[in-house]
């Protein structure tokens, strides 16, 4: 009898793809809370991609595609969005994913204590269940970024039963509806997921287990890939790319991020803005921008692994305002502007987080600006402290990176609209606010782009933020791994990944 069973197993194994495969992913840092409502880091989203499916997803061109939803429809006045929900989807605990569950989740995102999704879903006034497979979101005003927002954590669905039962402790054992379910997590150690047998798209999953391990040191992370400890690593250091390029066992995948890296100036966040020439006088900021050679910055500081830019979206993005191109370096004009402003040796302090990227950029910028007469003082500050100081306006200039959101509004509104939480520059112009608000409620793409062009032109004149470049997301992976899709949000999807 034993032999028969063994034979049967072998036959079955030959007939079906025999899955004992584990996918090992190396992360550049440890994720935070594993609850989509409370989560607040980029790296957490990488893990969610395998654990929690969401209403919609993104493709390589940042187009919204269905995932847990099968379709959507805007009302004629764009104040209501009707979403059709995929039938036969269950959560990891067996509960059905229906309209009631979707309503529960959206309300949880909006009302739970400590929720980080509240701002994202603020324009959603109410959620109604039309039938078990249809929900309708009613908005207080047309809100163009909504669909894009539902492709991120705000669109992730957790099991209502599990959430209610676990309450505050839900994140210790999250229950979602993605291709993999939670097994265990050792903080800073590893996160283990195993295949969810009843996943609605199980044909696309070719791994039994996924294990994530954070390794904060980039040299050690690369070493772990090279020694076969990981199949895939994320956010490689730009300087490590040549090392892998030469090795035929591995590949490097790269794509321009949806975020940006730039220098934010305090032009009105606090009194400090008036105490330094760069904060006071837009001509000084113009001179500063003209003293920079963005291509050289990308070459030297990022080993070429970035794309120079001058707006909150990359030049390759469909929402980039082509009428506002990247200015070329012009030292002569920079010096002239400084002279005109009366400060031939303008000096200001550049608050720089102690991360390697920011430190390199700051040093390169300091050296370049010096050639125009600037005296940039680098003030290295621990990253956590920079957030605080920026929030209080206790800075003059700040090397700030933003991880990016799929809809350009996510890179624009909170940063440049008056008094918004991420508006560290203190930029406050009624005309720009007006345009930004209009751009949020304009659903027609062409009209929206025109608005962005106007905003970009305004921003480029005033320069509360001098955008510098958009990094490449850099993934290193074993050549045996196929099916990897590079999507600009930098998150790896596990669907259709296969080990050969």
């Amino acid at each position, binding site marked *: 009898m034993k032999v028969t069973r063994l034979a049967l197993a072998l036959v079955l194994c030959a007939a079906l793809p025999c899955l004992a495969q584990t996918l090992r992913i190396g992360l550049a840092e440890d994720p935070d809370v594993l609850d989509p409502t409370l989560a607040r880091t980029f790296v957490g989203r990488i893990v969610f991609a395998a654990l929690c499916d969401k209403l919609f997803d993104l493709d390589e061109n940042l187009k919204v595609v269905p995932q847990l939803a099968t379709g959507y429809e805007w009302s004629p006045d764009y104040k209501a969005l009707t979403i059709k929900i995929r039938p036969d989807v269950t959560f990891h605990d067996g509960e059905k994913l229906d309209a009631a569950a979707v309503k529960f989740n959206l309300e949880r995102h909006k009302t739970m204590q400590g929720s980080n999704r509240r701002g994202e879903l603020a324009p959603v006034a109410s959620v109604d269940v039309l039938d078990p497979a249809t929900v309708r979101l009613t908005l207080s005003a047309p809100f163009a970024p909504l669909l894009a927002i539902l492709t991120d954590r705000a669109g992730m669905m957790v099991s209502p039963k599990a959430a209610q039962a676990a309450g505050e402790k839900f994140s210790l054992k999250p229950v979602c509806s993605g291709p993999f379910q939670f097994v265990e997590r050792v903080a800073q150690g590893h996160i283990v997921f195993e295949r969810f047998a009843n996943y609605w798209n199980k044909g696309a999953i070719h791994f039994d287990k996924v294990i994530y391990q954070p390794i904060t040191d980039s040299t050690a992370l690369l070493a772990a890939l090279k020694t076969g400890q990981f199949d895939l690593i994320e956010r490689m250091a730009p300087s490590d790319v040549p090392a892998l390029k030469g090795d035929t066992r591995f590949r490097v995948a790269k794509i321009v991020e949806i975020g940006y890296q730039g220098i934010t100036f305090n032009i009105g966040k606090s009194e400090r803005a008036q105490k330094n020439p760069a904060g006071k006088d837009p001509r000084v900021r113009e001179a500063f921008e003209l003293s920079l050679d963005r291509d050289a910055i990308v070459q*030297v500081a990022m080993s070429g692994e970035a794309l120079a830019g001058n707006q909150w979206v990359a030049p390759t993005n469909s929402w980039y305002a082509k009428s506002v191109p990247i200015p070329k370096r012009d030292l002569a004009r920079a010096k002239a502007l400084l002279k005109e402003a009366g400060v031939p040796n303008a000096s200001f302090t550049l608050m720089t987080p102690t991360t390697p990227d920011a430190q390199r950029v700051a040093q*390169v910028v300091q050296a370049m600006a010096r050639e125009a007469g600037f005296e940039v003082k680098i003030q290295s500050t*621990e990253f956590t402290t920079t957030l605080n100081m920026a929030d209080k306006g206790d800075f003059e200039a700040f090397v700030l990176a933003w991880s990016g959101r799929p809809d350009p509004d996510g890179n624009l509104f909170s940063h440049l609209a008056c008094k918004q939480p991420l508006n560290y520059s203190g930029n406050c112009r009624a005309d720009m606010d007006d345009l930004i608000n209009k751009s949020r409620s304009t659903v027609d793409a062409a009209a929206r782009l025109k608005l962005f062009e106007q905003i970009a032109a305004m921003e480029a004149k005033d320069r509360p933020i001098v955008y510098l470049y958009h990094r490449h997301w850099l993934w290193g992976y074993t050549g045996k791994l196929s099916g990897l899709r590079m999507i600009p949000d930098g998150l790896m999807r596990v669907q259709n990944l296969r080990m050969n």
Partner: protein
Amino acid sequence: MAAIASPVMATVPRELTPWQRALRRLVRRRGAMVGLALVIFFVAIALLAPWIAPHDPLGTSWSAVRKPPSAQYWFGTDEIGRDVLSRVIWGARASLLAGLVSVAISLSVGVPIGLAAGYLGRWADMLISRITDAMLACPFLILAIALAAFLGPSLTNAMIAIGIAATPVFIRLTRGQVLAVKVEDYVEAARAVGNSHLRIALRHVMPNIVAPLIVQATLAIAAAVIAEASLSFLGLGQQPPAPSWGSMLNTAKNYVDNAPWMAVWPGLSIFLLVLSFNLLGDGLRDALDPRHG
């Protein structure tokens, strides 16, 4: 009166003071001498930096990013085109300062407190001892990190943080020596004669503790240089663009594959400097403690 010819003195071996005897023992220990020579070498480099560094340590050159050693750049260039040799030379200042200033802080705070604890006794001693125990019970690097984070990332703050975190060792050492000496006859005699506490502390107690303090201080300098490098690894030491071996090593570790010269020279320098202080400290301990001589 006829000048009296100076009498022929028999060559009597002069009585050597304990210090001179110790010095002799020190000189005989080869390891310590090598250590001393290296320390002097590095101090000289640090002092002469402005004259011997071939390039500006902060001078960047976009066309010379991560170039291997050549005639123009003897140690190669770093990730933004600066000369590694010049940065190593200037970095000697930061690393030596990290070692010397930290320990100076520890000594100037720790020794008086230790003296107070040992000499005053009773409540003062109890309070100081408990606080010292508490500081020693916290991991040294954690204390240093928390302090450096509190003060803000910079070389000066790193030195203060390391200095404070290393103080309890000196408090304990001083206190221990004071307690041992306090009961000696000559100290009791001095008190009987009416010397003030302060006078006794300075004239009788201090000379006895100098020896172990010197040894401990030398070894502490070695540890402090390492500590600065460790803090740099976490982004808390000397901040760019100013060079220090620790922060250079921290940046260079990401380029070990394609630009190993960036790491080799600062790494070797730290190693030699710390090794030499360790050798010197060990030699001093042997020399100053007759049981080992």
